[in-house]
């Protein structure tokens, strides 16, 4: 009877040790899984940030391109578009039209500030679109040298199209 009880106690202890061992292995296994998962999440988060930055850059390029090709400001000669050229007669009125229809142009130009600065001859500035947000995470400024065409004198001046794009 005494020996039976002893055997039972020994077996119980062995079984407990075995269960304890399995629990310890599982614990280590899950710890490793959690560490791996945290690392994975960190990597994914970093990649999302990188992609967000790339997306913002692409959107900024897209907005800049859209502005440069707006029929509202672009020069044309018998409906043939002249690249990198802004018609200053159109520009004078485009700034008020674009301000009056800010919501319409928001679809094209999002949160941005678009200015045309005349550098030669003399100095002048036109703000053609401005819709800013305080709550932005990235900001890009693109400067594009443009010819400023005066249809009245049929002469070109030198200007810079400054496009500031803001992204949340």
């Amino acid at each position, binding site marked *: 009877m005494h020996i039976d009880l002893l055997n039972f106690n020994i077996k119980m202890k062995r079984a407990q040790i075995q269960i304890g061992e399995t629990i310890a292995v599982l614990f280590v296994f899950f710890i490793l899984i959690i560490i791996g998962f945290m690392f994975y999440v960190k990597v994914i988060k970093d990649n999302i940030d990188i992609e967000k930055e790339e997306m913002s850059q692409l959107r900024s390029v897209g907005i800049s391109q859209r502005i440069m090709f707006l029929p509202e400001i672009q020069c044309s000669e018998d*409906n043939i578009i002249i690249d990198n050229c802004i018609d200053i007669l159109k520009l004078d009125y*485009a700034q008020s039209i674009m301000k009056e229809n800010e919501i319409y142009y928001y679809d094209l130009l999002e949160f941005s500030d678009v200015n045309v600065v005349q550098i030669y001859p003399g100095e002048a500035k036109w703000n053609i679109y401005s819709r800013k947000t305080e709550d932005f995470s990235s900001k890009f400024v693109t400067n594009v040298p443009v010819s400023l065409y005066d249809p009245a004198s049929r002469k070109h001046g030198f200007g810079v199209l400054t496009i500031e794009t803001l992204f949340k």
Partner: protein
Amino acid sequence: MINKKAFEIQFNWIFVLVAGAAIILFFTVVVIKQKNVSETSTKATVLKSVEAIITGAGVSTDTTNRIGIPSSDINVDCGRVSIGEVSKQYQNLILFAPSLIKGDKLITQTLAFSTPYRATNLLYITSPQLRYIIIGNSEIAKYINKSMPAELKKEFYKSAPEIKNSNNYRIRFVLFDNIIAFPKALEKLPDSDVTAVKINGDNEKGTAEFYQKQGSSWTLKDTSSYIGKQSLLGAIYSDTFEAYECNMQNVFSRLNLVTKIYVERTKRLMEGAVTGSQIRCNQFYSNALTQLNSILAASSGFSRENINVIAASANSLAGENKNAQIYSCTLIY
């Protein structure tokens, strides 16, 4: 004793089973989540491509591209492009496309909408898996056939042929003469998959009747109008009357804004042309201003009456611009 040993062994098995099940469950959940994330990410990538195409369309005209994308079903609505649950909303999108674009390739085309000055670019997107059947013997039928990209699955017939089913997900008939009898081979297809547009008019303007399959016949959905080859192509690529009207309304909104600028520009040109040889220019500008004002008024809404006004004014305006060119005046556009 035996019972206790059996209990010990069974408990060990149950423990292993529970732990194993927990591990399998954990990984299954991770895999399912990852699969969903990956699918959404693919859809977002395709949507990004479509966005890039839309941006590109604004800056380049008269281009045709064939673009590879991951195989997807793109739904195009009025001002909305969506792939599954991922979608992008636009306020004034000008995109003529069938309501469903299927497959791993997109065919895009861009054309400038000019009346006669460029107001905006029109973007057309379709799938090479969509079948276009053009039937007509007129000059405009041949012209439209030539204007549609060669990469499309298009067939051109002078008169109604015997149509066979070649298992395309959608079929679009473009009819220039009379409406044809509904092809027997296509009767079993779902009603929404077979549509037709019947064109009455010329290169300049006309009407477009939108038909849809209903059982074994055609049913006229509605009639709209077009102005110029560019909007005619829009009526061909859009498979519903609503989508076409929505896009044309957006085109007219933009035309209205651009015309306002041309009106003011022409006024300024007139003010500057008051001396010497410029007086003749003043006359051209004055005539042009009348035409521009009539385009401005007519571009307030897309309708057949307004199209007639714009088409007539555009012709006169082109004439005034030609006169300005002949007399070395600053051009109107």
